[in-house]
C-alpha cells in the first residue's frame, strides 16, 4: 500500500478529538491488515519463499527401449522390444505422446518437450506386391525384395493398425523393417534404393495445452502439404524449351527414420488446471490407404517439463488483520485506550509481520534471493570422430577412448562440484539441455566399394546420445536413459569408404571414384537436441547432493549388425555443441 502520514500533528493546546486520535494509528492498522507491500517492507529484507511460491513445475516422462541390442548383437529398433512405446496413428490426428497436468494461477508456462521417434515398419507401396490393403499378403515377397541385407538377417516386425485409437497387432511376420534394396548402381536412385520407397517419415510433433495445439511449436511447415520449388532457373526463360517449374513434395515434416525431437514454448494461461501434452501426428502420403498403411512411427523415450511462472498474483490471499480499539466520543483517554489497545497494538503487529498482513504481490525481486543455485553453459568446438560402440540401452558403461570400445563416450561435461556453486543441501530441480552437431556417421569397409552392394548398409549406422551424471560418492556415471536420442545416417548416397584405403583418403571421404570421388563432405549435419530433468523423484534420494559432473555422451552402432562390422568400422563425427545446466531451489 502507498505511504501513510498522520493527518495532523498533535499540539499542546489541541482538544483530544477521538477521530483525530484514531487517525494516529488506524491507518497503520488498516495497512497491516492484508495491505502491506513492497512500499512498506524494507528492500533489505530477505523473504523466505514458501514451497512453490516462486515457481512450480511438473515433470512427466516415459522410458522405452527400442531394443537396438549390444555389441555383437545390434539390431533394428522395434516396438517388439518395448512395452512402453506410444504409436502415432496414421490418421492425421494429433495424438498424445506424454501428458502432464498442473494447476496454476494466471501464469506463463515454460514448456519443454522431448520425443524420440522411430519408424519401425514400412511396406513398399511402390513395390509390385503392394495390394493397397496395408497388409503385406503372401504374394508380396518382401524378403525377395531385400536380398542384399547382409548383416543380422531378418528380424520380426509387427503389423499394426488402429481401431478407434487402440493399437491392434494384426500379424506378426518376419520381414525386415530396416532392410534396404540397393546396389551400387542404385545408389543414386532413391526410388529403388530405399526401403522407405522415396518417402520421408512424415511425422510432426507439437505441444498441446488444454486441447489447443500450439502451432508455433509444430516441427514442420504450417501447410504440411506445401510443395516447395526446386531452385532451377532456366538460363533463357523465354525459350520454348525451358522447363516448367519443378517442385519437391512432403518437405513439411520430419523426414529421418529416427530422430530425437525437442520442442518448447512460453505460453500464458488462465487460472485453473491445465493439461499439457507432447502430441504427434503423421501426414498422409496418399489419400485412401494411408490410414491403414503398414508402416508406423512410434515414440519411445519422451519427456515433458512444465514450469509455472505466475504472472498475476493468485486471488487466494490469506488475510490477517490488526484490530486496535478505536476511540469513541466520551471515551476516557487512558494508557489502555490510546496505548495498549491502540498505538501499541499496531506497533506490536508491525514488529512481528505475519504473512496475512501482506497483500497480493507484496514482494519484489529486492526481497528474494535468487532461486538459482547453479547455472552454467559449456560449449565445445573440436571436431572429433569416435568409434565407441553403443553398449545397450540400459548400460552405464563409459568408454575411456573414442575408439573400438563398448560404452558411452563423454563428449562434454559440466563441472557441478559444490565448489562451483552446486547446491547439495536444499531440495532442488535441475534442468539440463544439450545440443550436438553431428556432421557424419560413417560405415567403412575393407572391401572394394565396387565389389559389394555398398548401398545396403549405410542407413543402418546409428549414433545415440544421452545425458548422464557422475556421483562422487560411488565414483560412477549414471546414465539417464530417458534422455537417450538416436539418429541414423540418411544421406541417400553411400558413405562407405575403404578402411585401409590410400593415405589420401581420410575419414569421411567418399571413395567411390566413379561417382563420388574426393568429397570430404559432412553429409549428415544433424543437430541432436537432448534434455533431462533431475529432481528427488527421478533419482535416488541422495543423488543430487553427490553429483559432481553432468555429461553428454555418444556412441555408434550398426543395426542388424552381428560381429562383422565392428572394429572401428562404424563411426560418428561431431564438431560442436553445448550443454546448459541450471539448478533451482524449490
Amino acid at each position: 500500500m502507498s505511504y501513510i502520514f498522520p493527518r495532523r500533528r498533535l499540539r499542546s493546546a489541541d482538544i483530544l478529538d477521538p477521530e483525530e486520535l484514531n487517525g494516529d494509528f488506524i491507518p497503520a492498522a488498516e495497512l497491516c491488515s492484508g495491505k502491506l507491500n513492497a512500499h512498506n517492507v524494507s528492500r533489505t529484507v530477505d523473504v523466505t519463499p514458501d514451497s512453490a511460491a516462486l515457481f512450480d513445475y511438473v515433470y512427466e516422462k516415459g522410458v522405452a527401449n527400442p531394443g537396438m541390442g549390444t555389441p555383437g548383437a545390434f539390431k533394428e529398433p522395434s516396438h517388439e522390444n518395448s512395452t512402453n512405446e506410444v504409436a502415432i496413428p496414421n490418421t492425421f490426428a494429433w495424438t498424445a505422446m506424454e501428458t502432464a497436468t498442473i494447476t496454476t494461477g494466471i501464469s506463463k508456462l515454460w514448456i519443454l518437450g522431448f520425443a524420440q521417434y522411430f519408424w519401425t515398419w514400412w511396406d513398399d507401396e511402390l513395390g509390385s506386391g503392394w495390394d493397397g490393403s496395408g497388409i503385406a499378403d503372401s504374394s508380396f515377397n518382401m524378403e525377395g525384395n531385400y536380398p542384399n541385407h547382409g548383416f543380422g538377417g531378418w528380424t520380426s516386425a509387427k503389423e499394426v493398425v488402429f481401431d478407434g485409437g487402440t493399437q491392434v497387432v494384426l500379424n506378426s511376420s518376419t520381414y525386415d523393417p530396416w532392410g534396404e534394396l540397393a546396389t551400387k548402381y542404385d545408389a543414386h536412385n532413391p526410388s529403388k534404393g530405399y526401403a522407405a520407397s522415396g518417402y520421408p517419415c512424415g511425422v510432426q510433433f507439437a505441444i498441446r495445452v488444454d486441447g489447443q495445439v500450439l502451432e508455433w511449436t509444430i516441427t514442420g511447415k504450417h501447410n504440411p502439404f506445401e510443395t516447395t520449388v526446386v531452385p532451377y532457373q532456366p538460363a533463357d526463360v523465354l525459350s520454348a524449351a525451358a522447363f516448367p517449374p519443378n517442385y519437391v513434395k512432403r518437405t513439411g515434416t520430419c523426414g529421418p527414420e529416427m530422430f530425437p525431437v525437442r520442442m518448447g514454448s512460453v505460453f500464458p494461461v488462465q487460472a485453473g488446471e491445465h493439461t499439457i501434452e507432447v502430441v504427434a501426428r503423421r501426414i498422409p502420403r496418399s489419400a485412401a490407404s494411408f490410414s491403414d498403411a503398414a508402416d508406423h512411427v512410434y515414440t519411445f523415450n519422451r519427456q515433458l517439463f512444465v514450469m509455472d511462472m505466475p504472472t498475476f498474483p493468485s486471488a487466494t490471499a490469506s488475510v490477517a488483520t490488526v484490530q486496535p480499539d478505536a476511540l469513541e466520543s466520551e471515551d476516557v483517554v487512558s494508557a489502555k485506550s490510546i496505548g495498549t489497545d491502540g498505538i501499541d497494538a499496531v506497533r506490536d503487529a508491525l514488529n512481528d509481520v505475519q504473512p496475512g498482513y501482506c497483500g497480493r504481490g507484496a514482494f519484489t525481486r529486492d526481497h528474494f534471493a535468487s532461486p538459482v543455485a547453479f547455472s552454467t553453459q559449456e560449449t565445445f568446438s573440436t571436431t572429433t570422430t569416435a568409434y565407441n560402440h553403443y553398449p545397450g540401452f540400459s548400460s552405464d558403461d563409459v568408454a575411456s577412448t573414442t575408439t573400438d570400445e563398448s560404452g558411452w563416450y563423454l563428449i562434454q561435461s559440466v563441472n557441478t562440484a559444490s565448489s562451483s556453486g552446486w547446491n547439495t543441501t536444499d531440495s532442488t530441480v535441475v534442468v539440463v539441455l544439450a545440443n550436438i552437431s553431428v556432421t557424419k556417421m560413417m560405415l567403412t569397409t575393407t572391401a572394394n566399394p565396387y565389389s559389394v552392394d555398398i548401398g545396403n548398409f549405410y542407413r543402418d549406422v546409428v549414433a545415440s546420445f544421452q545425458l548422464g551424471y557422475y556421483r562422487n560418492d560411488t565414483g560412477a556415471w549414471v546414465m539417464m536413459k530417458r534422455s537417450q536420442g538416436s539418429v541414423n545416417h540418411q544421406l541417400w548416397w553411400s558413405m562407405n569408404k575403404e578402411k585401409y584405403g590410400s593415405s589420401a583418403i581420410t575419414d569421411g571421404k567418399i571413395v567411390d571414384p566413379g561417382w563420388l570421388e574426393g568429397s570430404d563432405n559432412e553429409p549428415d549435419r544433424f543437430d541432436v537436441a537432448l534434455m533431462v530433468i533431475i529432481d528427488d523423484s527421478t533419482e535416488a534420494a541422495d543423488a543430487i547432493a553427490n553429483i559432481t559432473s553432468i555429461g553428454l555422451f555418444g556412441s555408434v552402432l550398426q543395426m542388424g549388425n552381428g560381429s562383422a562390422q565392428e572394429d572401428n568400422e562404424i563411426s560418428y563425427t561431431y564438431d560442436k555443441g553445448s550443454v546448459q545446466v541450471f539448478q533451482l531451489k524449490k
Partner: protein
Amino acid sequence: MTIIKDLDYTNGNTLSVDSHNENVYSTTLDHGIMSTANGDLTDLSSSFKCSKEHVWPGEVFRGHQDFQYDTAHYFSNTISDAASEEFVPVVGCALRVYMPYDVTFALWQWSFHLSAFVPQIDQLYDTGEDRVEPLVKMRSTLNGATLEHTVRAAPLSAYLLNEPTNVDRESHHFEHYMARPYDMAHMATSVSAGWHELQVQVFLENFADDFESIAMDDSADGFTRTQLINSRASFGIRNARVLTVL
C-alpha cells in the same frame, strides 16, 4: 529493526505531545508506526514464509517468445555474396526483449523446421569441375555477437550428375528426407538489465556466381536446355524464446 516506543502511556500523567507524535510518525529511523511502515519494516515473523500470492509477477521468472508460421524461403542467388559469408536474419526466428533488472541467467531457445535444397553437383558439364557443394549454414547471434556453438550447416539434399545424357531432374532430390527440426539453446549468465536481441541467421553460398556455367542440360526431347542452379533454405514453423531467472 524493531519499532521503538517513544512514549509508554501511563494513567494520571500529562500526555507528552512530542513523544506521542514520535510514536505516530518520526523522522528518526525505527521510530513511529507510520513512518516505519513507509518502507522500513524489517521485522517479519520468525516463521514468515511468503506464499505464491505475495510474489509480484515477473520479479523472479520471466518468459517471452515470438514466432512465425509462414514458410520463409531463402535462395542463394538473392542474398549472398560468394566472397564473404553474409548472414541474413531468418524472419520470425528472432526475439528482442527488455530485461528490467539484472538476472542470474537468460536461457535463449529457438526452434525452426528446415528443409533445404543443397545440391552436390558432380562432373560439371561446362567447366569440368569435379564437384560443387555449396554451403548453407545457420547461426545465431546475441546482441550482434555470433554464438559460435550454434553454427550448423544444412545437409546436402540433392545429387546432380551433370552430364547431357544422364540428367534426371526429379529423382535425385532428397530434401523431404533431410527436412528436420532444430531446437537450440544458449545460456547467458549474469545478464545486465536492458535490451537484448537474439537472431537466427542463414547464409547461402552463391555458387552460381562462381560457376555461371553450372547447368542442367537435357536433350531427351530434342531440346537442349540450360538451367542455373541455386541452393535454397526453407524455414517452416519457427519460434524464439527466452527464460530469465533472477
